């Protein structure tokens, strides 16, 4: 299936969970990433049971703390 992950369209295995996608994409600090799937936030507890489908769009949102 094709997914658009962080704006880039790529081929992924069917039946991939968000948890597995986070591993595959080598997300830094995976326990603190916010994920949106087709413009809706996914609760982190639901990552293992959320399976993006062909054509879906996934965004990772990261904490960024600095500023001074």
């Amino acid at each position, binding site marked *: 299936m094709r997914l658009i992950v962080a704006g880039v369209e790529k081929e992924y295995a069917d039946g991939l969970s968000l948890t597995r996608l986070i591993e595959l994409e080598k997300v830094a600090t995976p326990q603190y990433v916010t994920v949106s799937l087709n413009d809706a936030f996914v609760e982190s507890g639901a990552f293992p049971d959320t399976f993006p489908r062909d054509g879906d769009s996934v*965004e990772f949102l990261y904490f960024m703390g600095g500023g001074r």
Partner: protein
Amino acid sequence: MAFAHEQLERYSRHIILKEVGVRGQRKLLESRVLVVGAGGLGSPAALYLAAAGVGTIGIVDADVVDLSNLQRQILHSTPDVGRAKVESARETLEALNPEVTVQVSRLRLSADNILDRIRDYDFILDGTDNFPAKFLINDACVIARKPFSHAGIIRFQGQMMTYVPGRGPCYRCVFENPPPPDAVPTCSQAGIIGAMGGVIGSLQAMEAVKYLLGIGSLLTGSLLTYDALKAAFRKIPLPARKNCAVCGERPSISAPFDYAQDACVLP
């Protein structure tokens, strides 16, 4: 009120813009913006706001200028090392534009004082360096119905979003709660390329100016990210969270509160 000749000249490049004009410039002169943190983000932001003739600029910062700040915090110069950042900031901004009133508060914002500090301002700009402060500013602005610009920068990356009451998600919609101290790196631990504050802080000033003028579209409902090494900007749509603890349908947060400070921001 008619513009004096000197004002017409100072702001001439604004006034010839059809989106600004004399009316817009007058709006800026009557506007009040609070900059929290006179550091990497707050420095360029405050400089551009002062240059633009934003009539009243508030600066909040508790710290003194450190030599390691000067690689990016361009409000301050070498002779300012050891001085209160708010004093150094005041001097720089008044020299740039004597017409601007600079109101400084040498303190750290907390649940006890934040609502008083933000009350008199039209727009708030978050230039802080830690998550407790970022959540505090978000909650206070949502509760007091104040628009604000959020930003964070680290290493070669920066990101920002704008909150306007009733127009899309707040910072807590996106991130819910601060990460535990030291779970994600901050500037002092991870480093920051100096010009990043210039890029993102200037964009924060741009958001403030557009909001004050009522022109264009803002970064409400989207997160702008900048990766300097890839030379790439992205604008990521942000949904609102219906169950957001502060701006959601049944909010559980009705007053600002303090999280424990990150260990790394203590002197």
